[in-house]
């Protein structure tokens, strides 16, 4: 599902993102299910705080990790996240 570039992205209120000490990774929890995340996926989802648009999230992550060129990867991951209901747009 395409991300609307003009709207902010927030993490789903009916899912929970949390660090799992036993697994040493972040996970998404939802009714009777769990998705284990790698480090970069978790960082992208944490940036979905309901105030930032896609372009701002990309720019902030580039800055945070002192890198560039992640536009396609981040956009692609967020499209999947939206399809799975992990994130939402108003």
């Amino acid at each position, binding site marked *: *599902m395409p991300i609307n570039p003009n709207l902010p992205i927030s993490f789903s209120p009916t899912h929970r993102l949390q660090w799992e000490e036993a697994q040493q990774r972040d996970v998404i929890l939802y009714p009777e299910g*769990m998705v284990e995340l790698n480090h970069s996926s978790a960082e992208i989802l944490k940036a979905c705080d309901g105030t930032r648009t896609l372009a701002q999230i990309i720019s902030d992550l580039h800055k945070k990790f002192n890198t560039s060129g992640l536009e396609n990867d981040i956009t692609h991951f967020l499209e999947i996240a939206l399809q799975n209901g992990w994130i939402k747009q108003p």
Partner: protein
Amino acid sequence: MAGLNNPNITPPRWLLAELTYKCPLQCPYCSNPLNYAAHSHEISTEDWKRVLTQARKIGAVQLGLSGGEPLTRQDLEEIVSHARQLGYYSNLITSGYGLTEERIMALKTAGLDHIQVSIQASSADLSDHLAGTKSFEHKKQVAHLVKKHGYPMVLCVVIHRENIHQMADILAMAEELGADYLELANTQYYGWAHVNRNALLPTKEQFAAAENIAQAFKEKVAGKMKIYYVVPDFYEDRPKACMNGWGTTFLTIAPDGVALPCHSARELPGLDCPNVNDFSIEEIWKESKAFNFFRGFEWMQEPCRSCDEKAKDFGGCRCQAYLLSGDMNATDPVCSKSTQRHLIDEAISVARDSALSADEKPLIFRNNKNSRLGQ
């Protein structure tokens, strides 16, 4: 002590807390043991808190609060609150019966993440008949209230021969109630469902028709409602990967504190399932005879032992092997490679004859009287 240093033991992810065997409903496919009435002792609030703490420490993160009917436990809010503090994702698995708006709010405050409401059928008459209690309209109200208070709402409908013809109406009901998830659970034939199998097992034609309807619906509601379809394994030619492998993922604690590798494992002989009042969860998970019994592949007989699919389905379900063949080490008879597949085919055939006969035997409802008779 064999398991203590065994690196092959994975941490549990799922803790199913069966808080009680008490239930106001009498569903004839209940997964509780037939003789549940003989296990009426319930462990205390403090016991449950200790169990939650210990299981969380070794990795459990999904918590199912089930039963019986978990709402009959007056300390449910306290248990939920403790679970939330520990970081569990807590799932209340309820009939909805007796659930008030006040309690829905109190559970939310305590930190409950989600409520799964079960409805027995799409019509009041049939739903009330199957539940053995007038409850249909009340359950629908509860489903609305669950949504109103911001929980993800999972609607669970157990599918069998009495209601499978309602599939289209069941799906419409889920849509009308605004379910976020719909669990279409084809009956698994353990516990009470095993006893009632001849009356509950649909014919292959009925399965195929219902599955087509559900599949079309799934595509229609994609992105809005997620469908969990629990497969009817009698009509498959490979067994289910039961419990994702014995002692790998799931830990069930029964109302009296007995720890079970699966919620039906009480039916298996000689496991000596440990009690949480005698051992810690870590000892139970790693060291107990019961949890190590079917771990790995060493226990397997042929054709499983040399099968290239054994890491995929782990030989299927131990309870099903035991209930149908009398040998809990046997290949799940669902498998077409099993020399005992005829047991499944005969069960299908007997149920089919029963469906077509004029004098079908009545359902045996799950209640204290029938539980004591069955012992």
